[in-house]
């Protein structure tokens, strides 16, 4: 039963991705706070760096312990996939271990414990190295995923194995850079929302107000810029890649059932009706999708009717919803943060309570947008593990029975429930204690 293998991977990676999406973005914000402190000598910026370092540390720990199961599962649950493609994606995954995890973990301990021992300048540098390590990790994972989305630089040998033919092709893959930048800016949106959200909480609660204002200011500025960059140019760039390299997935995620001669409409709302092959309760704007994709109002975009069942993703509604949730939330972030940015510029932000509440309440949503974004990539790639080459059904471990997979899936579910509760408890405590408790 491949279902349990897929469910286990989907569940464990969704849970895992709660943590790195914060730490990647947050590491940059921490470096910014530390840099600002070194320049201005205002203690509050150092407080901010150290406060978010505590949040970072908890997230990092959980990122590590939930990340190792991802690497292991390639072998445990997807042995056939590992055997056939390990010679290629093993390169980028091994590089991740060597180039980013060592860097990140070696200097994280120094950053957390070492401020008094190593001095302020070195402390800044260790923070920067942690940031570098975490982004290198993102880059190499995206390089791995890019190969699965759009395989390059390989050849197929006897016994069906994929063998590396051109190493540098893995990094000049046209899928990689757009996906990497889109992912990193999205991660920065999450981190900015966390920083701004905690700030909004402090200001609204009338506690640690001065720190709260710094958090808000920083979070809103970084968040507004990065949420724009997520949409344009990186989001646009990715959509064009999907249209070009995975046209069947493009039709499915946009919800285009029928090809329209005079240009495709963009769907805003609607529910895929897989029986009648149409969208129920559709609200759409004509010709916009053609324009966005090809800068031509009448460009033809192949709908799902142009593809066979074998070419189309196997869960079209889930793909469609993931995509529309991601895009919808992204639009809301730009709107809200744009508003906040405007009032910050007019020096009124801290007095507009409704806006502060808005920032606070939206805090969980970038997580949802990031994870649904990954669902778009992964569901869109179906029914393949390696697009066009290796079917998902042909990638699982030949000797692991579904009873064993269900056993471990249930185990992970229980363990991650515990981890999730502990995580909320600890983060709640850190936020409740606030940055002021920091002894200087």
């Amino acid at each position, binding site marked *: 039963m491949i279902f349990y293998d897929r469910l286990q991977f989907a569940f464990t990676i969704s849970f895992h991705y709660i943590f790195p999406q914060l730490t990647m973005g947050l590491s940059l914000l921490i470096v910014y706070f530390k840099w600002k402190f070194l320049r201005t000598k205002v203690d509050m910026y150092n407080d901010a760096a150290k406060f978010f370092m505590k949040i970072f*540390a*908890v997230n*990092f*720990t959980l990122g*590590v*312990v939930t*990340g*190792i*199961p991802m*690497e*292991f599962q390639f*072998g*445990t*649950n997807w*042995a*056939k996939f*590992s*055997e*056939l*493609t*390990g*010679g290629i994606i*093993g*390169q980028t*995954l*091994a*590089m*991740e*271990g*060597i180039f980013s*995890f*060592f*860097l990140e973990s*070696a200097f994280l*301990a*120094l950053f*957390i*414990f*070492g401020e*008094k*021992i*190593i001095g302020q300048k070195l402390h800044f540098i260790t923070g920067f190295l942690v940031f570098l390590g975490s982004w290198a990790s993102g880059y190499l994972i995206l390089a791995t995923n890019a190969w699965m989305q759009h395989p390059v630089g390989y050849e197929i040998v006897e016994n069906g194995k994929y*063998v*590396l*033919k051109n*190493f540098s092709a893995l990094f000049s893959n046209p899928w990689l850079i757009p996906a990497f930048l889109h992912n990193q800016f999205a991660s920065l949106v999450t981190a900015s929302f966390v920083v701004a959200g905690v700030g909004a909480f402090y200001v609204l609660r009338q506690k640690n107000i001065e720190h709260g204002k710094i958090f808000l200011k920083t979070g809103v500025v970084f968040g507004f810029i990065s949420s724009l960059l997520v949409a344009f140019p990186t989001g646009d760039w990715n959509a064009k890649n999907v249209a070009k390299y995975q046209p069947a997935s493009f039709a499915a995620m946009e919800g285009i059932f029928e090809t329209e001669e005079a240009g495709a409409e963009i769907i805003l709302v609607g529910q895929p009706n897989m029986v009648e092959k149409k969208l129920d309760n559709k609200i759409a704007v004509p010709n916009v999708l053609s324009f966005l994709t090809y800068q031509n109002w009448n460009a033809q975009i192949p709908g799902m009717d142009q593809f066979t069942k074998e070419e189309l993703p196997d869960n079209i509604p889930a793909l469609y919803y993931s995509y529309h949730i991601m895009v919808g939330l992204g639009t809301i972030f730009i709107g809200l943060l744009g508003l906040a940015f405007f009032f910050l510029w007019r020096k009124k932000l801290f007095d507009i309570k409704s806006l502060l509440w808005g920032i606070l309440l939206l805090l969980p949503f970038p997580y949802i947008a990031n994870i649904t974004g990954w669902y778009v990539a992964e569901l869109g790639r179906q029914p393949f593990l390696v697009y066009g080459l290796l079917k998902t059904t042909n990638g699982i*471990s*030949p*000797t*692991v*029975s579904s009873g*064993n997979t269900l056993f*471990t899936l249930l*185990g992970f579910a229980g363990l991650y429930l515990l*981890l999730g509760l*502990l995580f909320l408890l*600890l983060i709640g*405590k850190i936020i409740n204690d606030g940055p002021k408790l*920091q*002894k200087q």
Partner: protein
Amino acid sequence: MELFWYITIAIVLSVFFVLDGYDFGTGIIHLFLAKKEKDKQVIAKAAGLFWDFNEVWLVAGGGLLFMAFPTYYASVFSGFYLPLIIVLWLTVFRAIGLEFRSQFKYQMWKDIWDKAFGISSLLLALFFGTALGNIIRGVNLGGVANGISIYEKHYFFLPLWNGSFSPLHENPGVIDWFTLIIGIIAVVTLAIHGANWILLKTNSSINTQLKSLIFKLNTALFILTIFSLIVWFIINPDALLNYAHKPYLIVFPFLYLMGLTGLFFIKRIKKDVHGFYLSSLLIIGGITSSLASMFPIILPSTNQVNESLTIYNTAASEYGLSVALGWGIIGMILVVVYLVVQKRLMAGKIDKMDYGEH
């Protein structure tokens, strides 16, 4: 090229067991000997400071194995499905035990995470030792029954145990009396190693007690080692043939022997770090001697139908292995630099240091 990556991965995994090994060992000592809160705190910190850095060696070793020997990775990880997933769960418990114990000041909270850290360390040591035992003993590759393979020739699946608990069974389980002995050896070895680490890094009140403990454990280890060798010889009479053919390999068991002998003089060793080096020799010697005895086999087949997995029949393409050599060397140099910088900046006993708030 296969040989180069085999040696590199063996080194990376040995470093993992030396570094994270002291964390496991510290956990074991913590579980049984640390009674006062001050000791518990400082010993947990001795393990907790670098556990994530240490664990990265496992991640890196896994990644390299995946890159260089994908067929082996696929075969072993799916074949040892259950024990590997259980190891993952235990590492989660160990990590959160270490990281979360000092987050709240309630004794109840600390107690539960101390236990999580200690018990998961103990079980991890046992499982890793058992894993080594499995690799030495071999598995029923291809799942042969009545002379016919039911899987592809390089795949297998092991239950946690079978009714007989015997390594001689046609379908041996993960746990049998041979692998269990190796597991216990791993626990004892890592307990010695952890005790040495505590001596090196702390001034805890149990330090004097630890030296005599190391002596006792070492005696036990000596007996267990001889016992396991005899058992191994019974299971596989050809076990030591490699040493007869290639006498220079004897250097690996010699390392083990040096560590074992040296630790009998633990009470006379003045510098704590020397004890730590000796127990590191035990670990490195133990792992490398096991690997050397099988070389170039990396997973023996227990049946006559399918051939054993070797570094040659499981490796990735020559081109891939050579390309990786380029970035691998750069990467390893960087890792050594980090290690030196880190140890330079954070040397000495940790209870004398002021690490500020955490």
